[in-house]
């Protein structure tokens, strides 16, 4: 269920974004003193992703799942001690 949601959010973002290849009014990276090759690559979709997950969508689902779990645990904690 989560994939269509993330796809829609991603698609909407991309569709309403100006293309990065367009010539910007400002010089992109105008302030950097390093050239782009000196910067770490940012286009690897798995970069930074924990090894036990296959995609960023799974991480986001995990976050939302954790939030729901925390709310349930807090509720149980409250009812137990009240």
């Amino acid at each position, binding site marked *: 269920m989560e994939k269509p949601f993330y796809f829609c959010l991603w698609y909407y973002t991309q569709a309403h974004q100006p293309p990065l290849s367009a010539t910007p*009014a400002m010089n992109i990276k*105008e302030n950097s*003193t390093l050239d782009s090759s000196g910067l770490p690559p940012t286009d690897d979709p798995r970069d930074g992703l924990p090894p036990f997950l296959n995609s960023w969508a799974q991480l986001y689902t995990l976050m939302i799942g954790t939030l729901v779990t925390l*709310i349930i645990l807090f509720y149980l904690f409250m009812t137990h*001690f009240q």
Partner: protein
Amino acid sequence: MNYLDWIVLSLTLIFVVSYGIYRSREKHTMDSFLLAGKSMPWYHVTLSLMATQASAITFLSAPGQAYTDGMRFVQFYFGLPLAMVVLCITFVPKFSQLKVFTAYEFLEGRFDLRTRALTSFLFLLQRGLSTGLSIYAPSLILSAILGWDITWTNIISGGIVMLYTISGGSQAVSHTHLQQMAIITISMVVAGVMVVKFLPDNVSFTDALHVAGKMGKVNLIDFTFDLNNRYNVWSGLIGGFFLQLSYFGTDQSQVGRFMTGSSQGQSKLGLAMNGLLKIPMQFLILLVGVLVFAFYQFTAPPLFFNKTVVDNVRATKYSAEYSALEKKHEEIQAEKRPQVLALTDALRRGDEQAIEASRKVLSQMEANVGHVRADAQSLLSKASGGDTNDVNYIFLRFVIDYLPVGMVGLLIAVILLASMGSVAAAYNSLASCSVVDIYKRILRKDNDSHDYVAASRWATFFWGIFCIVVAQYASRLGSMIEAVNILGSLFYGVILGIFLVAFYFRKINSRAVFWGSIIGEVFVVTSYILDLTAFLWLNLIGCVLVIAFAWMIETIWPQRPSSGKLA
């Protein structure tokens, strides 16, 4: 404070500052000074985000809030993980791909220079003033509890941060954040364990929670939808989402932290982990407050936790009246203790009737305590005219009165470190915006990197002095927390509105968003001056107004997009 406390306090501060300077001792470029060379792993990003958000007030006020109001404040953070998801999907890729230094740099590519300059100016104004308050708030409390001179406390705490932020820039800020969060977390856990140890021998940790729960302090979740109720699940999820999205996505003090990630993935993971860890962390801080409440059910608490105000009233004609209230308070507390022990006993036996009977009696006694405290506050207000809200003083008073020598110094260090963490990130972000958005973009376009690093150091120095001066005058602004939140609410909504238009409304151009944001800001300030709504709603109102006005202006007075623009 004891000598040992002073030694622990001094060594902790010296260690953290020296470590930060040592780890950032390289010769700096603009990248390394303002964005730590984009070299930080995700855990640095996470801890830096958390240290920036957690001010001294978080560790002073939150336990006090749990003591008086229960744990419901935790719901305020429910929107945070959702905001982190949106940031990871939308904001981080865009900022990373454009390799911007400041969030506002992106706006020039999307709109024009004046929109960038306007947003950056709004940020500088808001962040400069609120950082002054962030320095002042813990100084006020420390000076009240420990008798320190407030002017010197402001100068020293603000000055130490200037020292390592000027020296090592963003790298020093990130490295000190790591140490600060480690020391803060360990100290708060130790403080929680010690509160449990101070409970009577026959009262366990779970007994304490049961007692607090029966007295309404474990009120973590409220599913009722009520616009007048500040903390419930829905206000946390919806209101908290907008607040956290604008704070983390458009406030350079946070954008500057996640942009230090060594790659886009590291920044995203850092934000995601912040979303996962923040709520449990806030829960634990509130739990410490609830345990302090349970502790004071077995040991008589002071009638009023701010000792300085009490000492002042003793020197006035109201002294006898206050002493009478203290005596009455002590009597109620003495009557309460056997009832609390009876409740604990009934809980162990599982005797529901006895539990309910004890709970009713205790609720009545707690209400009586509330009446006496209200009378005392009204008397204190009459006598000194000062602030009679002692929520921020509850935890620190407990620390001073009960924790052993050495731990007091460590917890004072925790408060100062928490303050330094958020102030350091603020100094660095103020310097970034001043140099990148104004000095380099408008005044000196083609200087070399060393000139910009030097300018960044001077900008940090300037903002450091500015914030300390604001801190000296902050006492005239009333309640600190409220003052900080009001300041943020006046600007955050409008800034978020500009960014949302940039991201999601492709057809709206620079002229419309510029005038839309000016009109939106005027409306927000007018609403605040005329007191049309509670200030927390100004975030949402500002955001919606910018989008609505920009859309209307674009519809009525369309602007042809220039070929050179990104839009």
